[in-house]
């Protein structure tokens, strides 16, 4: 009796175990290619960056010396200040305007017109990267700009006057907003569209105007998406490289070649041959990006995806 029972138990256990093991092997097979890439270009570079930042060029362990060295570099504080200033402006402008525009396009417009606006706002996204910087070089050069009258009236009579250090964060926000905001407006609009009409109808019944509805109902309901946008915009903002690099080229050296931390890391690595110092800057940036993302992830439910 007991023997029979135990045999039955093992039989069901085995039966249950078979597809599981089969699935397990297949699982490894399916993730294999990706896992190799993840190890090679995600995990390894991260570990390598930490290793380099903790050693010197002869491979000797130096503790936090590399971090102290780069942090004391005269270009370190300005580069990080530039970037943080840019990030703060960029996030405020991006979140404020995209949400506002999405609410307006969702609530107060005929659908066809709203779709046209979204399309036109979205198109400059195709010019992301080098192309957008070049286009804005022209837009901001009073000699060729279609809005040279505007630049003139703001007191910018030459390209050199536009490219003063104080203006650079604003210029980068303009470029980033021009290429990035349209896509996010489309996304925010989509998120607003997911809010059931009954909810908005109920708000209207209660006497809430469109702005009140937006502030108390629509925006809280798409909070998750706003956080998601902020995370990705923050992560992208810490990576600033191509924009200041190209402006530096175009300004004939008037703009410092170490405006952003990534540029500083580049100069450390390729002009000073100091890969350990460059890695230390990378680790600073990595930590900053992870802290920022971590805070936002904790405050939204974005990444609670695996509850099953």
């Amino acid at each position, binding site marked *: 009796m007991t023997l029979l029972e135990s045999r039955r138990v093992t039989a069901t256990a085995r039966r249950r175990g078979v597809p599981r093991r089969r699935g397990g092997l297949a699982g490894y097979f399916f993730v294999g290619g990706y896992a190799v890439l993840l190890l090679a270009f995600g995990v390894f570079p991260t570990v390598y960056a930490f290793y380099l930042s903790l050693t010197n060029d002869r491979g000797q362990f130096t503790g936090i010396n590399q971090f102290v060295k780069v942090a004391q570099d005269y270009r370190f504080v300005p580069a990080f200040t530039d970037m943080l200033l840019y990030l703060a402006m960029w996030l405020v402008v991006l979140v404020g305007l995209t949400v506002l525009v999405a609410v307006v396009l969702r*609530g107060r417009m005929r659908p066809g017109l709203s779709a046209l606006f979204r399309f036109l706002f979205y198109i400059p996204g195709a010019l992301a990267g080098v192309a957008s910087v070049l286009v804005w070089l022209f837009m901001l050069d009073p000699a060729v700009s*279609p809005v*040279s009258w505007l630049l003139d009236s703001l007191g910018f009579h030459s390209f050199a006057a536009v490219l003063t250090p104080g203006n650079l964060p604003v210029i980068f926000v303009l470029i980033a907003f021009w290429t990035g905001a349209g896509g996010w407006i489309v996304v925010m609009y989509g998120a607003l569209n997911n809010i059931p009409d009954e909810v908005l109808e109920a708000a209207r019944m209660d006497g809430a105007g469109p702005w009140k509805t937006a502030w108390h109902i629509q925006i809280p309901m798409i909070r998750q998406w706003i956080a*998601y946008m902020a995370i990705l915009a923050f992560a992208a903002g810490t990576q600033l490289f191509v924009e200041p690099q190209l402006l530096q*080229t175009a300004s004939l050296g008037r703009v410092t070649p170490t405006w952003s931390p990534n540029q500083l890391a580049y100069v450390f690595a390729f002009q000073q041959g100091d890969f350990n110092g460059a890695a230390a800057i*990378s680790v600073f940036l990595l930590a900053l990006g*992870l802290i920022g993302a971590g805070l936002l992830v904790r405050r939204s439910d974005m990444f609670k*995806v695996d509850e099953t």
Partner: protein
Amino acid sequence: MTGITFDSPTARRPGAPGRVLSTAVVVLLLGLLLVFFVLPVIWLLLAPSKTAGQIVSDPPLSFGSFSQIGAAWKHLTSFQNGALLVWLKNSAVYSGASLLLTLATSVPAGYALALTKFRGRKTLLMVTLVTMIMPSATLVLPIFLELNKFHLIGTVWSIILPFSFYPFGVYLVYIYFATSLPREILAAARIDGCSEWQIFTHIALPLAKPVIGLVAFFSFVGNWNNFFLPYLVLPDSNEFPIQVGLNQLLSSTPSFNPVAGAGLNITVPELALAIIIAILPVLVLFLFSQRTLVSGMLAGATKE
């Protein structure tokens, strides 16, 4: 605030001062944004039809002539004996090959993470999420050193392999399968004697077409526009993708670099034309992909 109402027939109260003000603000905002987003694009499209002199002297939104576009094209293609075409070909090779590798790795991986069980699945998922939100440009330097160690610098693989690593794509596929393919279907197929490979190719893949399009779009656009990595790892102009090529054109433009640019025919119209050509593939994708983009970015929402 109280006078503002929704723009719908039941709630319309014409003449309420709050509503007029609110409408004025909305119109002004949208008008300014419209100019901001569209004007540079129109200017860019018109610039190659004019000479450098006309761009300065003529009204900014005027059209020059078609023959001038031809002239700009001729100047552009004669730059370093047709370097522009080589750069375009390079970009196509890098983005195309990475796209194939990205799809071949991320689609099965996302599928397995969503629908199979294996030891380490959770860990892999977590690492994927972390790398997805990690600022990837900060890894470019260590990746450069890694590639250097394996003597891959200057080869096509130094671009294609890092480009193929795309955790966001895996995440999208994972979300898609986790939400739209019930495990019961897979269990039924297993009972019917399908192998895991058959289940993947016959059941999962045909269902995955929308998400494959999505991953392909993001991967291609991202890689086509990537500048930092190729800028570091490719020393030779013949290997540049178009983005790095544009940088070289910029530093050869007399108006931005009078010394190196002297004697070359690369002026504003040529540069504008180069920009248009460089973004053309991405622009075509963008024209047809707005809906794709939304569904991709909102993919997580269907989970709840």
